[in-house]
């Protein structure tokens, strides 16, 4: 039976400011969902909340995996239950080699009950697998010896996220603007990489502004988020429409959310003292 990631009426605040105001979403293993929305609508907040960033406080609603509420689980426990976030801004871990880091990660994800200090996946087996995944993604094996994201270009970092995705084989992958800040070649590499990894074993939630990633990974569902609520859900053609025509039509169809969005932006500008 395929697994289900179920988000029900999720409310999330950051520093006591409500950002998500009732998001509901169901993602099954094997499905591709696109999440689109203007800047500041809550896309990244949803991504961080799903994997358990401590700054994002759930004030209502639930996140469930196969009926088990994960609201109170820390990021490590959620990862071991099969959640994965490909970061928009991958973090550098100085002095920690990619291979060493991934060997720990892979072992923990595959043996979720492992405690620190217990054995790691055998080196030979791990190296072989890592090498294969890197070759599939067109990555130089030399990267395994480098320090994680240290001195990596934007494209290299994003590719490293996809490599981790490939190694960890999560049930649910959230891709937070994995295609942003990349030149078109890099977008193609990342898009193809993701397509190769997609399959019946992985459900994905792709957060993107661009269409390229979705050309390679055609979503069955496209969700539009505005002012912290999912206001529309459609198929791939909705993503196409938003890409070509922007959010004007969406805002017209949802005037209440559009007004909230405008109000929030005005406040934000005032707060940082930006004149218009």
């Amino acid at each position: 039976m395929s697994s289900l990631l179920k988000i029900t009426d999720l409310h999330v605040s950051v520093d006591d400011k409500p950002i998500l105001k009732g998001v509901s979403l169901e993602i099954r293993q094997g499905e591709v969902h696109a999440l689109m929305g203007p800047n500041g609508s809550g896309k990244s907040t949803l991504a961080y909340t799903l994997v358990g960033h401590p700054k994002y406080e759930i004030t209502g609603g639930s996140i469930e995996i196969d009926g088990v509420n994960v609201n109170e689980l820390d990021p490590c426990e959620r990862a071991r239950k099969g959640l994965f976030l490909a970061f928009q801004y991958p973090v550098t871990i100085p002095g920690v080699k990619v291979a060493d880091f991934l060997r720990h990660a892979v072992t923990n994800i595959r043996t979720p009950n492992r405690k620190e200090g217990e054995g790691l996946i055998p080196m030979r087996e791990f190296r072989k697998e890592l090498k294969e995944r890197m070759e599939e993604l067109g990555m130089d094996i030399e990267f395994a010896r480098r320090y994680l994201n240290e001195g990596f270009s934007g494209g290299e970092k994003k590719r490293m996220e996809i490599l981790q995705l490939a190694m960890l084989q999560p049930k649910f992958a959230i891709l937070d603007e994995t295609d942003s800040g990349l030149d078109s070649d890099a977008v193609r590499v990342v898009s193809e990489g993701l397509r190769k990894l997609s399959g019946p074993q992985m459900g994905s939630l792709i957060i993107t502004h661009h269409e390229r990633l979705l050309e390679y990974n055609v979503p069955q569902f496209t969700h539009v988020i505005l002012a912290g609520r999912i206001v529309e859900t459609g198929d791939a053609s909705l993503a196409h429409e938003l890409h070509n025509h922007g959010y004007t039509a969406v805002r017209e169809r949802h005037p209440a959310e559009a007004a909230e969005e405008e109000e929030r932006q005005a406040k934000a500008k005032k707060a940082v003292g930006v004149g218009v």
Partner: protein
Amino acid sequence: MSATLSSVRPTSFDAAAFEQFLATRTEPAWATDLRRRAFEAYRESLVTELDPEEWKRVDIRAFRPEKFSIPAASTSTGAVETLLADRAEFAGAVSHSDGTCTRATLSDKWAQQGVLLGNLSDLIQTHGDILKPHLMTRAVKPDADRFSAWHGAFWTGGTVLYVPRNVEVNEPLYSLIGLGAEAAADFSHTLIILEEGASATLLEETSSASADATGVHVGAVELLLAPRSNLRYVQLQNWNDKVWHFAHQVGRVEADAYLQWTVGGLGARLAHIHQEVFLDGRGASAEVNGVTFATDKQLISYYTQQTHNAPNTRSDLLYKDVVRDKARCIWRGMIKVAKDAQRTDGYQRNDGLIMSDTCRVDAIPGLEIEADDVRCTHGATCGRVDEEQLFYCMCRGLTRSEAMHVIVEGFFQRVYDRIPVEIVRETLGHAVERKLGIGG
């Protein structure tokens, strides 16, 4: 300046004790004279304050010298636990326990080429002519401060390495300083003399036989590098957390010689190391690495100086400190460049990583430059373990504590990368893991 007698700090190392101690020694007259001068300096130093620049952040009021004494002979039977001893085949080794030499070996291959590796107490009798020009004359001077004077009067032995001209000892050598007896005072002296074009690697560690015996180490390290010589010297301080560690350590590097010096600070209740490198000849170069990991209530303090006395010299110091619990690490660094030392390239950097709310790192770099054509840079960073790094690691299935440990090990990696001796990298990594409470 008047000093009242009442300000004399109590010590069991008084004139009577000194004469008694001298009576147990068999040494050439020049060595005894050296001790007497040092003892005078020590007596004087007891009524003067320690240099506030060096000591103001290091509180040693709880240190009571009178509680410690030099063990008559090695009384400890328990073997000290070593980090390094079994990790490699050493071409020679010297071990001391409670100030007494318990072992000194050197493979024939090197002995036949004139290399000396042994105990200072023995070699001062058999090879006094070689040691005399170097012992506490050029590097650690007895009148430098209270601790160097104390050491100069009472040194008990220690490891001596002498490598003759153009002999390149390409196998590592080992030295162990062990403490076993309760309330023992250790006065080990490490003296390394490399003649022109010589090279060697000496790995030294300090270790306690028991986890709860108190003790004090008043040590000195002298590294004397003649022109074109090349020395790698490592000292891992790994006492139990009851031992007081005071060390005066000086390297003098002559023209085109290269010193690579790595200091590991893991143990001791309180450790204060006065570490100086002098670049005395044109083209001299020194790299200094420090790995410090202080936990519980440990205080580990360094006072480092890189002194450039000649043109075209280079020094490069990198210290990395991790503190946890209520521990504290202090680093006061200084690069000095003499007027004639043009085209000096000096670098110093200390990075501190804080693992808990109740620990602290003080890092104070400094420059004193008299030449006008130099490149000197310094820096210090200090911060907590980054929450975003922890979050990222946890998102990949690492527990918070595992993530913390991975980040700490990564933090030290930058120093390990500078250490060419693999067993030293491994040993430091292993020791850090053990202190973190992971690994075997």
